[in-house]
């Protein structure tokens, strides 16, 4: 069927030293950087969660104090959302989108590097707060006016707001980059409707990022002005209202949760057909329901604010808007089941996680529908019921989906296979662990346990379920440990991966694992939504998705014509460092801010005037031997 180019056969013109990573503009390397960073922070956020669970295992426990506990859940939430799920998804966007659409890089390779470094500096800034007198402690959505100078005089909130702003800039830059990449750089014949679902959902996610992040940026700017310059945007004594923050945060925050789930929807929509050995059922419906979810997602934010007293009309409007989202989401779920229906399901680890994602997300989605009814939400809001909902969608939905993607594409990225045995053990431990941890939280919430409490009295009927949840958390941790073991073992001594280990249908499987620097030796021509499958199996009974009876063959081992790739550059890193210095400067003093601004401007100018390809840039193909 396909030829498997061994990993060792790929010659790297970029080299492998540290400098080559610091200056890289290769979307695949940037993707790997995002992925490694996210998996590191996953352990950090996970350990924070474990401490939370230990504290709550028994009533009136004194493992950590009240202030520490507030810092722990704030950092746990912020870390998991901004430092784990977003960058883990970004890792996959980076690595896979160009491969899936038949491009040799993203539209702006250096902007891409800038996004990563900016994100990295922002995330470091956030965590530095642990060592400078206290991390932020106002919850992951930092409700005003608990974040005001008066009620939160420490520096934790400053770190939080500055790092979120910096990471926001990184996300917006990446959002522009990927939107342009997907709109502009598709291989000939790769029409929008032929794009893999993962690419589609990436596009929707980028649009959501572009439209949602500016709003939280504005909210954070107001907070920054309140704290640094004495304005009164959120200060009730001067006529401001803390409710404004809630609106600005959730206008961002609700689209943000779809930013976090849609990549997983995309992954599942690509993984299920591969392992059911059938095309995605109702492809256009799955695409348009993704668009609908994204659009509706902008009209429901106040369902997080049903208890603020908005009045019956606003309650009704936002409840109905929220209910509506169940329809496109249901369409997706049903089409996934339709994909499995009538297939020949091959039970490999990616499939386990994909199915786990579908089954667990349904639970989270249904508890979301309960929240969407304002009277019900008055009972559930800020109780453990919400904690259950958010972990079923985040852990059961996003994390499971991302792991499906990790198991699916790992061979492509590393050129090595993972162990199926460890993978399945990881799956079962995670699946059991998450249900043992998070399902009882529904009961706790129904039983009146508020969230964000570091202690509770004995005899409230909460003891048993809290203990159960804690045990479950350690089961998850054990499962995750197996994943890290599996990963390390695979990198050290895993069996080499063929180009197309799963007999898949999309373009990224048409090249060696890992792919060469230039991705495609020849730019592919696409005639179907499943170009590779069409090539391998020929036209099947139904020809509706392809125009010609020929698929896209796998890539030759070496490029027949000369390929020029961009040169590495230090300037994105310099500009990003400038952002980081500016951010820390806001806490240290004006000179440091100016220094950072200077670095940023210098970096941007040097970068703008540096040609993308300079003498000595990587050149592949027949011309390369003469050219150098």
């Amino acid at each position: 069927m396909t030829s498997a180019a061994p990993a060792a056969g790929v010659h790297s013109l970029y080299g492998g030293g540290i400098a080559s990573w610091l200056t890289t503009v290769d979307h695949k390397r940037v993707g790997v950087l995002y992925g490694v960073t996210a998996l590191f922070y996953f352990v950090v956020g996970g350990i924070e969660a474990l401490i939370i669970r230990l504290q709550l295992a028994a009533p009136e426990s004194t493992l950590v104090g009240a202030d520490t506990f507030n810092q722990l859940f704030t950092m746990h939430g912020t870390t998991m959302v901004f430092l784990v799920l977003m960058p883990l998804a970004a890792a996959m966007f980076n690595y896979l989108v160009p491969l899936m659409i038949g491009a040799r890089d993203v539209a702006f390779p250096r902007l891409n590097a800038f996004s990563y470094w900016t994100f990295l500096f922002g995330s470091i800034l956030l965590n530095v707060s642990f060592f400078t007198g206290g991390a932020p402690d106002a919850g992951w959505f930092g409700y005003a006016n608990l974040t005001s100078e008066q009620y939160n005089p420490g520096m934790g909130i400053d770190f939080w707001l500055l790092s979120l702003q910096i990471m926001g800039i990184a996300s917006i830059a990446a959002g522009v980059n990927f939107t342009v990449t997907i709109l502009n750089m598709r291989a000939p014949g790769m029409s929008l409707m032929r794009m893999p679902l993962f690419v589609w959902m990436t596009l929707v996610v980028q649009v959501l990022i572009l439209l949602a992040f500016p709003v939280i940026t504005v909210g954070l700017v107001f907070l920054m002005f309140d704290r640094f310059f004495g304005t009164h945007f959120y200060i009730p004594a001067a006529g401001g209202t803390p409710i404004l923050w809630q609106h600005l945060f959730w206008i961002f925050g609700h689209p943000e949760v779809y930013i976090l789930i849609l990549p997983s929807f995309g992954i599942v929509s690509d993984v299920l057909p591969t392992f059911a050995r059938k095309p995605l059922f109702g492809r256009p419906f799955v695409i348009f329901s993704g668009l609908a979810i994204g659009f509706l997602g902008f009209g429901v934010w106040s369902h997080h604010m049903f208890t603020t007293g908005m009045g019956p009309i606003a309650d009704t409007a936002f409840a109905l808007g929220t209910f509506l989202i169940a329809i496109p989401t249901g369409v997706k779920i049903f089409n996934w089941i339709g994909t499995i229906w009538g297939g020949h399901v091959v039970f490999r680890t990616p499939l386990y996680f994909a199915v786990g994602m579908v089954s667990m997300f349904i639970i989270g989605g249904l508890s979301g529908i309960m929240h969407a009814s304002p009277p019900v939400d008055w009972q559930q809001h800020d109780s453990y019921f919400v904690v259950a909902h958010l972990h079923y969608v985040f852990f059961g939905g996003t994390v499971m989906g991302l792991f499906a993607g990790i198991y699916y594409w790992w061979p492509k990225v590393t050129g090595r296979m993972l162990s199926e045995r460890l993978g399945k053990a990881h799956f079962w431990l995670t699946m059991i662990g998450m249900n043992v941890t998070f399902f009882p939280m529904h009961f706790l919430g129904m039983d009146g346990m508020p969230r964000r409490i570091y202690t509770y009295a004995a005899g409230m009927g909460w003891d048993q379920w809290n203990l159960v949840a804690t045990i479950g958390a350690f089961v998850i941790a054990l499962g995750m440990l197996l994943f890290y073991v599996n990963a390390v073992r695979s990198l050290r001594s895993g069996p080499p991966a063929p180009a197309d280990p799963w007999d898949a249908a999309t373009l990224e499987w048409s090249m060696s694992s890992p792919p060469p620097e230039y991705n495609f030796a020849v730019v592919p021509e696409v005639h179907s939504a499943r170009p590779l499958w069409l090539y391998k199996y020929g036209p099947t009974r139904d020809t509706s998705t392809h125009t010609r009876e020929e698929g896209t063959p796998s890539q030759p081992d070496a490029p027949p014509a000369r390929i020029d790739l961009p040169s590495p550059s230090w300037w994105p890193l310099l500009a990003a460092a400038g952002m980081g210095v500016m951010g820390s400067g806001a806490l240290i003093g004006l000179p440091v801010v100016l220094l950072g601004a200077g670095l940023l401007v210098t970096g941007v100018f040097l970068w703008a005037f540096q040609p993308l390809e300079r003498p000595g840039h990587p050149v592949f193909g027949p011309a390369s031997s003469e050219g150098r």
Partner: protein
Amino acid sequence: MTEPLSSVEETQVEHGEHADGGHASRGTYWLVAVILAIITLLEVAVFYVPAIRPVIVPTLLSLSAIKFALVVLFFMHLKYDKPVLTGVFLGGLVVATLIVLALMLLFGAIGPGSHNV
């Protein structure tokens, strides 16, 4: 309005890659600028004429909407450029406008009376 638009699109197809931008003549630019200046003058005038007070808000909103459209269509060439760009811009503009309106309603800045926020 539809007539010239479609013919423009045809030319664009003919010109292919080079069609981006630069279709209006200098004369058009000057004309648009003059209209913009006149509308601005009108806006300021409206502000000072007491008789218009009752309808000042809709009047001003319409006038500035015209200005907005003129700049976007002619100076930013959206009228002559690829439709995908119009889609991109309108996407952001529409969502932003709807959210501004919703916030106004929620804060009681417009709509039936102001309520507790």
